[in-house]
């Protein structure tokens, strides 16, 4: 059963009609819609204008999926019952709501994994089509009442007339003494940044460039982000960027040169080819030992296709004690994409064969009775591997560097623009050198240099790679276009434009 709800205020025909058409096309009979006070009720699904609270509860209980406007009443109701909820925000410019707060609310709640968001009818249809396959998806569930902090604060205020102190909001990790003082024994750092993968991810193939060169905002690539992170140590740093495909060389070189140029006295980057295939991460690091500029310095090993952790402090301290390996960890003890080794630990690595860092090197060091310790450096690891994870990384990056209280600055800093100032929504990156028509709608998407997007096109939660041409009025939703995808797309596109001509002929 699918339960559609538009809330108690205005009707929301844009959403209901889409579902109505879809129900007709797919012969679905198990849909019920609460449609508000509309003059054009749906024709192919059951409906009611309004529901009493009891009826509403009952419909929620029967539903497997709830599709609703992004109103808090419906969202909270569905979450309380542990139902999966897909929300479509009302838009002010279509007079569906006084302002666009629903778009912002929906996005914030979706970042917390509570709701799925579709921004318009075009996005809703593919989601409806996919419902069949994903009905096992577990929905978020929330507790019956507000957080204990909120209830406690109100309770105290009612009883005592005031609330003392302030609530500690964990914004950043607890501060530790700054590095130049603590890890005074460490003057240099040797960094090995792994920029290749045994099997390139689909995102890598579509984008046609190494993941480390992808942009996180208009001015920063993933590599830049890591260089900034390394810069915080204030140490002489030699960075070896390891690739395993010759094809990656040119772009990474350009990207590294740019990164070094931006940071005066920043780390120095050299790009090296992975000497032997199938050597494993620890194997690669050990093989490169001869080329280290600082052979005695601690070795920092970085997975470059991750977002750098929030913090860097504390990572070197254990080395001054007796630790041989320090693993950067997330607050829930997962690896955070970075670890630091004493160079002599690499003696363990055999000269030939596959040897992994996390699964072989670290366990064997522990087995020898040497100390391995972990230091919390971030809240969670954001690994860039798929389109979705890349978009998440961009959003996290934007949030991390956005001044929290000034939205104006926030938009400026992250390239975010609000709805009624132009057709760019959410967190979009349009690289310099990409041509995007001013009336093309771009939402939470990445347009790489050399791509061109014609007028009237809609691009939503997608990546458009270099050299791709998006035709006028074309819709690209939750896809990567580029690389190997291009040939297939041409065929698809030919098919679709054929359909459009037919429709025109009929009308």
């Amino acid at each position, binding site marked *: 059963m699918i339960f559609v709800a538009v809330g108690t205020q205005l009707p929301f025909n844009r959403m209901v009609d889409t579902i109505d058409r879809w129900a007709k096309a797919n012969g679905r009979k198990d849909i019920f819609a609460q449609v508000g006070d509309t003059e054009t009720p749906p024709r192919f699904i059951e409906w009611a204008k309004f529901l009493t609270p009891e009826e509403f509860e009952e419909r929620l209980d029967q539903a497997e999926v709830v599709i609703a406007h992004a109103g808090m*009443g419906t969202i909270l109701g569905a979450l309380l019952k542990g139902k999966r909820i897909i929300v479509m925000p009302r838009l002010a410019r279509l007079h569906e709501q006084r302002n666009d707060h629903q778009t912002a609310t929906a*996005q914030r709640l979706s970042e917390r994994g509570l709701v799925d968001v579709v921004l318009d009818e075009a996005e809703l249809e593919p989601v409806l089509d996919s419902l069949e396959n994903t009905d096992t998806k577990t929905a978020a569930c929330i507790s019956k*009442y507000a957080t204990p902090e909120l209830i406690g604060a*109100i309770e105290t205020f009612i009883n005592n007339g005031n609330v003392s102190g*302030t609530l500690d909001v964990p914004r950043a990790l607890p501060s530790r003494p700054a590095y130049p003082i603590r890890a005074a024994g460490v003057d240099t750092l040797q960094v090995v940044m792994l920029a290749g993968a045994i099997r390139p991810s689909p995102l890598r193939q579509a984008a046609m460039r190494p993941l480390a060169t992808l942009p996180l905002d208009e001015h920063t690539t993933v590599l830049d982000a890591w260089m900034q992170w390394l810069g915080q140590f204030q140490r002489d740093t030699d960075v070896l960027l390891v690739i395993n495909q010759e094809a990656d060389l040119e772009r990474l070189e350009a990207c590294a040169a740019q990164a070094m140029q931006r940071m005066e006295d920043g780390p120095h980057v050299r790009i090296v080819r992975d000497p032997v295939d199938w050597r494993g991460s620890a194997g690669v690091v050990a093989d490169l030992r001869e080329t280290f500029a600082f052979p005695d310095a601690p070795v920092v090993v970085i997975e470059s296709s991750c977002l750098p952790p929030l913090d860097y402090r504390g990572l070197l301290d254990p080395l001054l004690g007796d630790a041989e390996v320090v693993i950067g960890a997330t607050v829930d003890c997962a690896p955070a994409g970075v670890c630091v080794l004493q160079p002599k630990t690499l003696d363990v690595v055999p000269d030939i064969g596959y040897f992994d860092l996390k699964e072989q090197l670290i366990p064997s060091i522990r087995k020898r009775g040497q100390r391995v310790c972990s230091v919390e450096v971030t809240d969670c690891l954001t690994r860039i591997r798929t389109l979705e994870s890349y978009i998440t990384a961009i959003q996290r990056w934007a949030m991390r560097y956005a001044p929290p209280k000034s939205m104006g600055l926030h938009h400026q800093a992250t390239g975010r623009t609000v709805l009624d100032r132009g057709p760019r929504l959410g967190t979009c990156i349009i690289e310099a050198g990409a041509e995007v028509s001013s009336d093309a709608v771009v939402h939470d998407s990445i347009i790489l240099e050399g791509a061109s997007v014609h007028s009237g096109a809609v691009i939503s939660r997608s990546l458009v790679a270099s050299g791709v041409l998006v035709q006028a009025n074309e819709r690209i939703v939750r896809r990567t276009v580029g690389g190997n995808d291009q040939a297939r797309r041409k065929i698809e596109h030919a098919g679709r434009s054929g359909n459009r001509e037919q429709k025109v002929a009929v009308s």
Partner: protein
Amino acid sequence: MSAKKRVLAVASGGGHWVQLLRMSPAFAEHEVIYVTTIKGYEDEVAPSRLHVVHDASRWDKIGLLRMFLRMAWIMLCERPHIVITTGAAPGYFALRLGKLFGAKSIWVDSIANVDELSMSGRLASKHADLFLTQWSDLACDGGPEFRGSVL
């Protein structure tokens, strides 16, 4: 254990109401009187009393006047010690009227306002004794405080 107080809990129907009820354990041990804009919520809050006021938006001046008068009447009858509200228009009126009758007021801005405070929240900010936002990044000195959320 402090004395039992009369708490007037006000919210317009829909999302604001659901959020208000999620905070209800905070005032469960006091005498609670609810005010909303939609009939049919009685069962949810029984045995507490529920008053219904006329619903109106900021453009419906006559509707607002009706809401205001009804709220004033409720205030006269109930004489609450505390007014707590999540918004919108009825909450604003209740908060201002409550002040006249000497009640302490709590405004919890709706969780739907993620980027900025609601219009009624901004109006109410000067008059609320405890003014809370549900998003930590909206909290600031001289503005709303963050002390948790309904979610």
